[in-house]
């Protein structure tokens, strides 16, 4: 019996991009013990999804279809998945590390007596144990962790940690899981969805982006950056702390909560390179990083880098551009 299971996130009948990464990881993890993984998908009126999921190399696919799951609520999802875990007794359940998963996974762990490993990057088998790697200290370091004790483990997987393309196609049996949702409380009454801070600047079509991070040090230091951007005909983007501090408006934010961009040139000044920022810009063709800390994670994905003070480097770049 397959005991590794992937939870497939969906919204309005569409499978989330990261769910395929979760499937690939589940297949690889199950293969360690010569087994096949399973999957579970939950929602309301999602029968059509089953076909899409059935074409994967999985032991079985469970479908939890219930009106209370029409909109995501932590209460509904925890009740449904705790019921399913009691039924199928998985040993490891994998999730995409989305904002949705992060919100309910710990509560599902309490409801099902499971442990949690948030934001897994990779795993290895060592001495009959699975060791996970996860980021700590905002991605500046990694920790190798294991699940001690007994009972199931819930692991959320960082975006891009496993390749969706590596998932294997096949044929899975699909069956409904009848879960008693009588005692489920949604814990919230949804009023609506809105755009944060009204998106007016579209950075997704920009060819060159000059992006600044907390290292810029204040709104009063923006002058040289603006001059550099003007000379390069670039748009200005920023990491989250710059927005949170009010130095630039929210529609300049790049990353998991902001815009996802892929210009031909992305220049990061004073940005450390936390994953929530990287997911929004790592598709850029050429990445340049300027940071005073040689160990900053941003250098790992950059094509060119200068280790130095941006307040000196930017004027020097402006001067070089003016000379040319």
């Amino acid at each position, binding site marked *: 019996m397959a005991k590794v299971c992937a939870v497939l996130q969906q919204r309005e009948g569409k499978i989330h991009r990261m769910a395929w990464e979760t499937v690939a990881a589940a297949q690889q993890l199950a293969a360690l013990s010569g087994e096949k993984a399973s999957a579970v998908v939950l929602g309301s009126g999602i029968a059509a999804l089953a076909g899409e999921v059935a074409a994967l190399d999985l032991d079985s696919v469970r479908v939890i279809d219930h009106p209370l799951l029409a909109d995501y609520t932590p209460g509904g999802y925890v009740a449904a998945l705790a019921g399913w875990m009691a039924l199928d007794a998985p040993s490891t359940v994998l999730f995409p590390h989305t904002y949705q998963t*992060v919100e309910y996974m710990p509560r599902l762990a309490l409801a099902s007596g499971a442990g*949690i490993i*948030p934001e897994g990057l990779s795993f290895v088998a060592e001495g009959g144990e699975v060791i996970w790697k996860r980021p700590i200290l905002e991605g500046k370091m990694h920790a190798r962790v294991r699940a001690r004790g007994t009972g199931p483990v819930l692991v959320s997987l960082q975006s891009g940690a496993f390749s969706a393309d590596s998932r294997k196609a096949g044929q899975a049996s699909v069956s409904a899981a009848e879960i008693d949702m009588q005692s489920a409380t949604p814990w*919230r009454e949804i009023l*609506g969805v809105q755009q944060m801070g009204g998106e007016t600047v579209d950075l997704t079509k920009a060819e060159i982006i000059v992006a600044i991070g907390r290292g810029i040090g204040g709104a009063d230091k923006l002058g040289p950056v603006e001059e550099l951007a003007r000379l390069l005909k670039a748009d200005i983007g920023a990491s989250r702390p710059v927005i949170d501090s009010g130095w630039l408006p929210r529609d300049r934010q790049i990353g998991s909560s902001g815009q996802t961009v892929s210009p031909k040139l992305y220049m990061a000044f004073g940005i450390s390179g936390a994953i929530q920022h990287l997911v929004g810009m790592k598709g850029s063709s050429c990445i340049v990083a300027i940071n005073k800390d040689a160990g900053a994670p941003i250098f790992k994905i950059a094509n060119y880098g200068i280790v130095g003070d941006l307040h000196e480097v930017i004027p020097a770049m402006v001067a*070089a551009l003016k000379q040319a």
Partner: protein
Amino acid sequence: MKIAVCIKQVPDTEARLRVAKDGRWIDEEDLPFAINESDEVALEAALQIAEKQGGEVIAFSLGPERVREALRKALALGASRAVHLRHEGFAGGDAIATGRALAAAIRREECDLVLTGSQSDDNGFGATGTVVAGILDWPHAWLVMGIEVEEGARALKVTREMESGLSEIFRVTLPAVLEVQAGLNHPRYASLKGIMSAKKKEIAEVSPGDLGLADSEVGLAGSRLEVLSVAFPEAAAGAQILTGDGAAAELISKLKNEARVI
């Protein structure tokens, strides 16, 4: 309204990190610490609500002796009391063990609202506040970017951040746990008067036993997740690093002639 705020002390973002001798965590000697960024935002949100609605803010922190400094700061900023979960047994806890301890301490105070940060800058579990909610059996929300107390103070209108710049608005009834995201507000600075008055405020120390918890329920003993070792990520092939006085000019020239992107 009685509001609990969970505050974690974490290494300062600018701190030079080193691996500890045993390789299992970072070396804390001479490491500068600060209040976790989103926890400071949670404290500010709590103070603003208490100022408007009346009531008090109590700060909770689990950690070794150094954590007193963070609690002192919370008191200087306006919290009326602090509870320090201080005991060797609490050390090495995962989100479930730490959340269990915090929930037990908070339960004793009969609060209406718990505010936490959304994620700690060191462990980064993004889970401890949710565990607190789960154990108290209260509603919760993660990544909160807006809190509005409704007429009568029985419910809150909450804005939660979603991916790609969207947010969801919903109502939760009190008592509840909200895990706030940096950017919700701009935390205040401590005034001289605040710093002086903080010296007279109480920091109560509690152990697992005081909270009615067994040693096997807290710290590493009460955790499923165990850290085996920590390390810096392997150096990637990565960037061509340019150095020296001419680095900026060289970069411009390479972007023009080598990468051909400008």
